[in-house]
């Protein structure tokens, strides 16, 4: 998923910002400054942005224009950030969102599994 291309028959050469590093679940990845976080993740092969609260199902990019809120992740510690609308900044800390936090469900000892973490 998400291979970048540099040349397009109609749009010509793709203009991109500066190449910067950011972290995704602790791993260092690279992307272009100013592009949506979701695009940088897609180009890096990341498809799953979050796991849902009730069913613990994976979700990723769906509308890519900030409407559907399916691509939300924990960014710099803040949950529910729409990654398709958030420009990438050097050093950004991006984490998979589980329910409404960055803590994987398996690690939540006290939470009621059935009711989710909300």
């Amino acid at each position, binding site marked *: *998923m998400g291979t970048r291309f540099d040349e397009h028959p109609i749009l010509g050469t793709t203009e991109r910002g500066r190449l910067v590093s950011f972290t995704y679940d602790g791993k260092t990845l690279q992307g272009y400054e100013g592009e949506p976080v979701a*695009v940088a993740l897609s180009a890096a092969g990341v498809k799953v942005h979050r796991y849902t609260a009730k069913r613990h199902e994976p979700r990723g990019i769906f509308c890519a224009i900030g409407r559907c809120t399916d691509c939300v992740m924990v960014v710099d510690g803040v949950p529910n950030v729409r990654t398709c609308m958030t420009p990438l900044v050097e050093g950004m800390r991006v984490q998979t969102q589980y329910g409404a936090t960055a803590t994987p469900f398996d690690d939540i000892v006290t939470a009621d599994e059935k009711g989710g973490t909300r």
Partner: protein
Amino acid sequence: MNRTDIIVVGAGPAGMSAAIEAAKRGAHVTVFDENSRPGGQLFKQIHKFFGSKEHHAKIRGFVIGEELMEEAARLGVDVRLDSTVIGLYQDKEVVVREGEEVSHHKADAIVIATGAAENMVTFEGWTLPGVIGAGAAQTMMNLHGVRPGERVLMLGTGNVGLVVSYQLKQAGCDVVALVDAAPRVGGYGVHAAKVARTGVPFYLSHTIKRAEGTDHVTGVTIAQVDSHFQFVPGTEKHFDVDTICVAVGLSPMSQLFKMDGCKVVDDRKKGGQVPVVDDLGETSTPGIFAAGDVSGIEEASSAMIEGRIAGLAAAEYLGFIDKDEMDKAVVANDAALDGLRQGMFAPKNRGKLVTTTEEGIPVSQSLLEHGYVADDEIARFPGVTRRVGIHPVIECTQNIPCNPCQDACPKHCIKVGDHITQLPAVEANSACIGCGMCVASCPGQAIFLVDEKDEEGFADVTLPYEFLPVPAKGERGVALGRDGSPVCEAEVVSVRQTRAFDHTALLTMRVPADMAMRARFFRAGSAGAAANETSAAAATAAAE
């Protein structure tokens, strides 16, 4: 509280056009848009627009977007991006979120041009990562230079599904199939034909049974549906894909009108909940106007005209111009709008089955059912003629409001006539010089130049080509028919790329004389096993 004359919500084609018209008449206009780029969907639209000169025909959407932005800037329109209108209250008070702050704005007139949202359908696995809206695909590839996936299945054959399928191919993706539960292609036949001839199979009366994969899409199974949209057992087909694109229509985003208390109705022909408006776009609340998709789903060309009318009306409402001046300006726009609302795909014909053209010619059934005009149907259309020597072949077979081909020809070989929806005809005895302007100007990529050299035993076919890499002169490959299947070997004898063609390369391939009316696309490489792997190998029936 910030005060201004007019607030426009949405910096898309409708909103920007409204802002420009009102600013021209002296109004202070502020435009709010929640996106970080203006232009709405225009900057993702990379095809040439249909229509006539007054509708920006044959200009690509993103170029129109740039022109709108420049004009607005020149007129001093205040365009505020990353500014989300979160509420509209009594007496035209608008609440906006900008960054980490909420601010209040008050205007004397408001134009709401919030556009539309994509519709969705549910199927097993539709929430898996890799199932995306067609708009998402457009955003990723046309704004950010990233392919949404490598192998894509498209659900929906309306204009969005067709255009985005073509764009996916332009970005280098493999489109394995176009699928629609309806029995007939919903969008323009020319959009379907330009996808079909590249080898993408169409499955009408089919829909998605399930998306497969655990953490993301790895495959999809489609199946045929009957007239009640129930699956027909035993018709399942499986495709290995990493992406499923959904393009099943749009709904107006009309919530702000409801919040204000404007009268809203459910109108199926307009795509859903729309405000009740008069001829000028004014809602039941005086001074609140609607323009563009939010008041009924149409094309960007009509959205721009509706925007201009709403902008004029708002300027008149506030006294920047008198009624006479407004009426004069509106009349011209009404005529332009009326021009776009003609033909088989006019809003009034939505959902109707049109079986003959205005000229009385039976519509191609193959085009409706498979996405391409069959070889034995093509000759009945007035743009398709044959003679020795070079001449245009215009495979335009449905009445749509569009006429750039007529203006493009310096020798007046092509005639659409007074009525913009008429099928273009090739004038007998006209002196085609093979300049190719008609080929490059056709937004539907439906015009070819055919140079029939019967005595020499071959024909040269010139076609519009918008993919990379552009084949080189001398390159050998396969000519594909309208259905995308190989018909013969071909050699590229000329490649023309000029500024006037606006990124459409004109490829001329040499084929045997008897293929002059069948060969319509070129694929590099041999005609052997690899030629049609997309459609043949991928569609393996899945055992249930």
